[in-house]
């Protein structure tokens, strides 16, 4: 064995040495590769550390530019280049921004570069071929374009495209005045770096696009919100001896809820609280339409036919009218026709959209306290006296706009001195707390049962309790309240 072994050693002396040399060679290569990998990793880490911070910034922001500048400086340093540049490009190859290493270029020079097209020389080649362009010696490479009157002579050049899929986002160029300064290893490192930069740049571009779009949309909605507010009364109409107040908290910028208080030519007061179905812009458009139709129709609608027949056919209380004055009764009835006219208008002209509103329209005689109303599918309104809820004004007909030619029954009730009429939209009772539980009618009623010094105080009490209940949960629905008190 030994002999054999020895013999083997002795006999194979030459090949064994070669084998060792080979092994050492390969080990050296491995160590070099590892070193390179480590170096590459280090480069990546430094560059990435710098780039990751820029997520969520648009391309235009200084933050991104500063970060790209740092990345370029780092890349220049790590590749031991003397000069470096980073051009952000349009798909056509036109420069949209230029960042140059070590801030040796003035903003004026940068501005001059923007808008030019990189179609010549190495950059042009890289853009056309979408691959890394490495020039070991510019004097021996036709891709290098030597421009006259250049103070700096380039011998080594490395140009790396910043690619995201098929899209070319930019190009990094690194230069040195001596030949053979950039290895294939370095080129590969820079290609990997460019991949990371592409990701960051694309993120920034998408973010910028989204940001612009969302800002434009916000501005549009803000305009919508301002115009919608104009469809609520500028000032709440305050007849003598009465106090009227309202609250309006839309869930989004625009809303389908509305309230209205206005003077009618018959010396009566129009009181409206309504909730257009669904949410957002569509509901807001219908809010504007319905509010306007109610206002216009209520002051212009004329009853047709014999007065006695009309009064008999529309009795609010079985067998009689509550109002002493038939003239007042008639004027209330006339104004309330606005509801069926609005209903038919919406149901006939906009039936394809299936939009409707739950709507309470009351006509109040401020002298006598007589209230004639239609509740078109809306949440009940309450009349509060000294000892809590006196009356509940339930729906007298369906929601407005739902079906054409439906009948809206009218009702009458007398508001006595001290009485408060309060109306709300379902955003109050369906307000959700962070656990998803509803505020409920029960909670609202318990707040209504406590005496209130004024309508403002009552509305503030509900508002405070409701928003305390909702706490930090999102407000799902529009919240609107209207309260009317006969003071004397």
């Amino acid at each position, binding site marked *: 064995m030994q002999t054999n072994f020895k013999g083997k050693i002795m006999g194979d002396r030459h090949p064994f040495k070669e084998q060792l040399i080979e092994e050492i060679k390969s080990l050296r290569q491995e160590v070099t590769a590892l070193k390179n990998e480590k170096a590459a990793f280090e480069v990546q880490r430094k560059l990435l550390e710098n780039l990751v911070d820029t997520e969520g910034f648009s391309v235009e922001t200084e933050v991104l530019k500063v970060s790209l500048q740092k990345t370029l400086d780092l890349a220049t340093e790590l590749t031991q280049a003397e000069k470096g540049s980073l051009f952000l490009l349009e798909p056509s190859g036109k420069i949209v921004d230029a960042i140059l290493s070590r801030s040796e270029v003035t903003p004026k020079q940068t501005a001059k570069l923007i808008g030019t097209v990189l179609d010549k020389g190495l950059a042009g080649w890289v853009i056309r071929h979408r691959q890394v362009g490495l020039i070991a010696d510019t004097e021996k490479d036709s891709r290098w374009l030597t421009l006259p009157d250049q103070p700096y002579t380039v011998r080594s050049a490395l140009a790396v495209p910043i690619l995201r899929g098929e899209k070319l986002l930019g190009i990094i160029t690194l230069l040195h005045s001596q030949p053979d300064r950039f290895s294939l290893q370095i080129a590969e490192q820079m290609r990997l770096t460019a991949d990371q930069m592409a990701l960051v740049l694309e993120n920034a571009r998408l973010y910028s696009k989204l940001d612009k779009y969302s800002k434009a949309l916000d501005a549009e909605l803000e305009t919508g919100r301002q115009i919608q507010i104009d469809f609520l009364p500028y000032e709440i109409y305050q007849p003598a001896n009465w106090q009227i107040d309202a609250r309006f908290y839309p869930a989004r910028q625009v809303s389908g809820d509305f309230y209205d208080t206005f003077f009618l030519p018959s010396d009566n007061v129009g009181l409206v609280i309504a909730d257009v*179905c*669904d949410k957002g812009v569509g509901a807001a458009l219908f809010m504007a339409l319905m509010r306007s139709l109610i206002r216009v129709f209520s002051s212009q609608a004329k009853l047709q036919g014999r007065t006695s027949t009309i009064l008999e056919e529309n009795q609010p209380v079985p067998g009689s009218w509550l109002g002493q004055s038939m003239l007042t009764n008639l004027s209330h009835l006339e104004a309330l026709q606005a509801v069926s006219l609005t209903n038919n208008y919406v149901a006939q002209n906009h039936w394809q959209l299936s939009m*409707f509103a*739950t709507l309470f329209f009351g006509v109040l005689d401020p002298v006598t306290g007589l209230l004639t109303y239609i509740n078109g599918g809306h949440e009940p309104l309450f009349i509060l006296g000294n000892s809590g809820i006196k009356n509940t004004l339930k729906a007298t007909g369906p*929601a407005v706009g*739902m*079906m054409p030619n439906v009948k809206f029954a009218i009702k009458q009730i007398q508001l006595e001195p001290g009485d408060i009429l309060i109306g709300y939209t*379902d955003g109050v009772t369906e307000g959700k707390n962070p656990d998803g539980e509803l505020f409920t009618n029960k909670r609202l009623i318990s707040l209504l049962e406590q005496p209130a010094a004024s309508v403002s105080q009552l509305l503030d009490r509900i508002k405070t309790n409701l928003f305390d209940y909702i706490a930090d949960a999102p407000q799902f629905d529009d919240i609107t309240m209207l309260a009317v008190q006969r003071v004397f």
Partner: protein
Amino acid sequence: MEITIKNLKDIKVVKLVGDVDASTAPSVQQQLVPLAELNSKILLDMTQVPYMSSAGLRMLLTLYRQTSAKDGKLVLVGLSEDLQDTMSVTGFLDFFTTGTTLEEGLAVLN
């Protein structure tokens, strides 16, 4: 929101599972409206719809208008107490045919 549509002879039985609100109503409507064909019979099972907002009522109104326009029939079953209240206050119950159970709904359509 889960929507399953099955055919029981000539009746299209639609089962909804989940809330129908402003975020889900458009997709429900998109799937249900095409069911309204000439003389079609649609049964909407809402036993597992805990909440329906006004956007849901709007979807129902659209479906009602489409089926009526094509001489079809629409029956709703399994309405929660809250939903029945809402549909009663808004007047929807006066126009829609409703039933308590699936069997009851099928009997109405047959």
